[in-house]
């Protein structure tokens, strides 16, 4: 706790010092700040270092456009700004929990109370005893423009507090047009307020003569350029810096959070949260965890980004839960699923997802479907032919290798034999060796080619079968499926009404997942599903004979009855036909899967396995790269919620 020892009040780093009242906390951000942290504690009970940290956390200043500030002020003044929710257009631009506070600029307690008499936040500011005018401390904004906008907002708010005159909106309007960050009118307004402050005997305050003359002694030297000259700051500011700021704390909140911590994995974030309270707050911020949660959800195919926002955005914004907590819950759910359902829940299902989406696209353009099927058939044959070509190529290579190998072997043997020939001298020996090599080469080539061809052909047969049979069968199945679908929808299309059935895709989903999970039962599963669908369609066709005319008559009378009868007859004919096609489709796909399953389902290279994720694997190689962060190990998840204190069940395989 530092007392300046001077009678004159001074302001620095959110700290108001005077000899009469000791060191106190300025109600820091004049315009926007997060929910208070220590409501129950007296400011004077806090040590200076903690005050500084609190101030850092609570600032949370972010860039705001003039229009945003303008709207916020308007909202604040009409609603008194107490814990109000920003309108939709401002979400994301401002902290959710914020209050608009006009900083009292008087040391006179009564006058201070009078200024805030009409404000709901009176109880908050009155006990803070926060006289002073922290001009320089406008916000922790991201850039100079925003800082100045914040400052302008502050000035306007102060002006309103002093005079009750809402000149700010017109003032903003001018600024919006001019795009000048320090317009002449702003300076004039500043000067008026400064004079007012001086006249009231407040803190020492001078308006800078230069627009770039910043707050050089600011302990939070972000790019908030200054609004005041150096003479505004107390002489002990430098001392304050030296005494209370260690080297690391000069990295202020937004840099630490948005540039440093955002590159860390969940595991490292949890580790950082254990370092000190300041880092604990920084590492727990939603802006860091929402990315990890999105990645986790996408990895597990639980929710995509938009779905996540739609489902939990509101409750997170309302402060009921945090993204960090949701991450923990999601991760634990993933672990539970892994224990209960096995590894298949963690397979990379992207290809399956694409197929399902393709199937669910609901496109009934027969021509396009036929083309797609024909393309599939062509592609299948092409792949099959390519496999054959590969086989021949390999066989040719083997033949060559066989030739060389055979020639070498037989030539060596012939040379040895030639060396042992007792007659004929060197010429005969060489001739014998060459002849042996030729004979050996031919023999080796023949043997090698036969063996290579047989081997490679045998190797390529399954691929050929897969390419030439399974893939066309898949395509045929697709054609049958889409044709069945189109026929199934024909009555509805014909009579101008969309179908209300969608069970066929439940079949697709179920059967596809089954295909992934249990390859050996693919055929049975397909056939079973096809027969079920056939039964469902036949049943639907016949029940439609009663249902459609009845509903039509109820809705539109005789005309509806006629239309419903037409639909019923058409449906009675089409639905069984569609069902039979589904059976054919199921048969074709079942056969195709049976053929293809052993060959076409390699282990996914990018398969996600929680236990294999290295705990120290870092999230992103570059700060703005799009790589998604890895997930922490199971043990690391325990640190997700320090305050909960619950024991989280750990997996045996969890990494330490």
């Amino acid at each position, binding site marked *: 706790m530092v007392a300046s020892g001077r009678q004159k009040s001074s302001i620095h780093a959110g700290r108001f010092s005077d000899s009469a009242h000791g060191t106190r906390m300025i109600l820091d951000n004049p315009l926007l700040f997060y929910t208070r942290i220590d409501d129950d504690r007296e400011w004077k009970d806090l040590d200076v*270092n*903690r005050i500084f940290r609190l101030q850092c956390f609570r600032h949370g200043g972010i860039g705001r456009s003039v229009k945003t500030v303008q709207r916020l002020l308007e909202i604040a003044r009409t609603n008194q700004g107490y814990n109000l929710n920003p309108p939709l257009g401002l979400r994301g631009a401002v902290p959710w929990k914020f209050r608009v506070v006009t900083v009292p600029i008087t040391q006179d307690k009564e006058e201070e109370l009078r200024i805030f008499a009409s404000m709901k936040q009176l109880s908050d500011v009155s006990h803070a005893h926060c006289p002073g005018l922290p001009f320089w401390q406008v916000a922790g904004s991201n*850039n*100079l*423009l925003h800082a100045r906008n914040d400052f302008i907002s502050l000035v306007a708010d102060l002006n309103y507090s002093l005079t009750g005159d809402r000149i700010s909106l017109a003032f903003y309007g001018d600024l919006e047009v001019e795009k*000048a*960050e*320090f317009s002449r009118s702003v300076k004039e307004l500043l000067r008026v307020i400064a004079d007012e402050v001086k006249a009231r005997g407040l803190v020492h305050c001078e308006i800078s003569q*230069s*627009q*770039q*003359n*910043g*707050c*050089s*002694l*600011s302990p939070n*030297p*972000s*790019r908030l*350029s*200054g609004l005041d000259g150096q003479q505004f700051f107390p002489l002990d500011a430098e001392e304050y*810096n030296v005494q209370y700021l*260690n*080297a*690391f704390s*000069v*990295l202020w909140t937004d*840099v630490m959070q948005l*540039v*440093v*911590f955002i*590159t*860390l994995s969940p595991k*490292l974030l*949890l*580790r*950082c949260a*254990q*370092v*000190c*309270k*300041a*880092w604990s707050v920084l590492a727990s911020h939603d802006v860091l965890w929402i990315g990890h949660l999105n990645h986790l959800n996408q990895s597990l195919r639980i929710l995509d980004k938009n779905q996540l926002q739609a489902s939990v955005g509101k409750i997170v914004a309302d402060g009921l839960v945090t993204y960090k907590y949701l991450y923990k819950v999601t991760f634990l759910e993933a672990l539970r699923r892994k224990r209960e359902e096995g590894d298949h829940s963690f397979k990379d299902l992207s290809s399956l997802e694409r197929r399902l989406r393709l199937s669910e696209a609901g496109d009934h353009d027969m021509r396009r479907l036929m083309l797609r099927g024909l393309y599939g058939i062509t592609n299948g044959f092409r792949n099959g032919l390519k496999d054959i070509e590969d086989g021949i190529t390999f066989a040719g290579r083997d033949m060559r290798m066989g030739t060389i190998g055979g020639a070498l072997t037989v030539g060596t043997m012939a040379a040895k034999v030639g060396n042992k020939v007792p007659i004929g001298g060197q010429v005969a020996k060489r001739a014998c060796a060459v002849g042996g090599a030729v004979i050996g080469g031919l023999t080796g080539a023949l043997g090698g080619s036969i063996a290579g061809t047989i081997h490679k052909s045998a190797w390529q047969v399954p691929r050929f079968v897969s390419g030439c049979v399974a893939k066309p069968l898949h395509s045929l199945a697709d054609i049958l499926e889409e044709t069945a679908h189109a026929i199934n929808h024909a009555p509805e299309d014909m009579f101008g009404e969309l179908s209300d059935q969608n069970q066929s895709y439940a079949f697709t989903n179920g059967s596809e997942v089954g295909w992934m999970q249990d390859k050996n039962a693919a055929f049975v599963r397909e056939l079973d599903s096809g027969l079920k669908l056939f039964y469902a369609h036949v049943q639907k066709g016949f029940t439609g004979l009663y249902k459609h005319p009845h509903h039509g008559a109820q809705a539109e009378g005789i005309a509806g009855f006629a239309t419903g009868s037409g639909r019923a007859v058409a449906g009675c004919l089409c639905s069984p036909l569609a069902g039979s096609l589904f059976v054919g489709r199921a048969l074709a796909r079942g056969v195709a899967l049976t053929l293809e399953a052993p060959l076409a389902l390699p282990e996914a290279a990018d398969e996600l396995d929680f236990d294999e994720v290295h705990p*120290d694997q*870092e999230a992103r190689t*570059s*700060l*703005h790269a799009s790589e998604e962060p890895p997930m922490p190990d199971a*043990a690391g998840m*325990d*640190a997700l919620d*320090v305050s909960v*204190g619950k024991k989280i069940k*750990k997996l045996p395989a*969890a990494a*330490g």
Partner: protein
Amino acid sequence: MSEADPEITLETYDKHQIKIPKSIATRSAIINMMIEDTGDVNEVVPLADKSCTLNIMNRVIEYLKKHAEFDNTGADDEVINEFDKEFQEQSDEIIFQTILAANFLDIKNLLELMCKKVADEIKKCKTPDDIRDRFNIRKDYTPEEVEEVKRAHPWIYDKNAK
């Protein structure tokens, strides 16, 4: 001083003046904004932030010049990365001050580069204690809070614990 690329005079926090080409200076969004505000390239641009000392500004300018050269010559990423890596290798004090200056001057690439260095240093630390030691951070947990943390996160203090 050419007409096309006039020199800008920057006044550092410790009252030194540095002349650099405008094309280099305007790589800082803040300096660019200041120049546009005044409209006079002959006016001295004061850098009021405490981090913008002569030593740090020389480093910042070195970075800006080098990257301008890379841009002009179309240097390979490998060369750029090598320079960046070498540029990162500084003492903590200089790194922090450079981050502050980069943030003040709004030089995004430099800010990210130096912050990446900090992040890398954090990644090297295997425990919270390592991080505290590395960055000289005071542990502000009360004894009760430490006990609570120990109960919640035993593996942090006991490497054998799972």
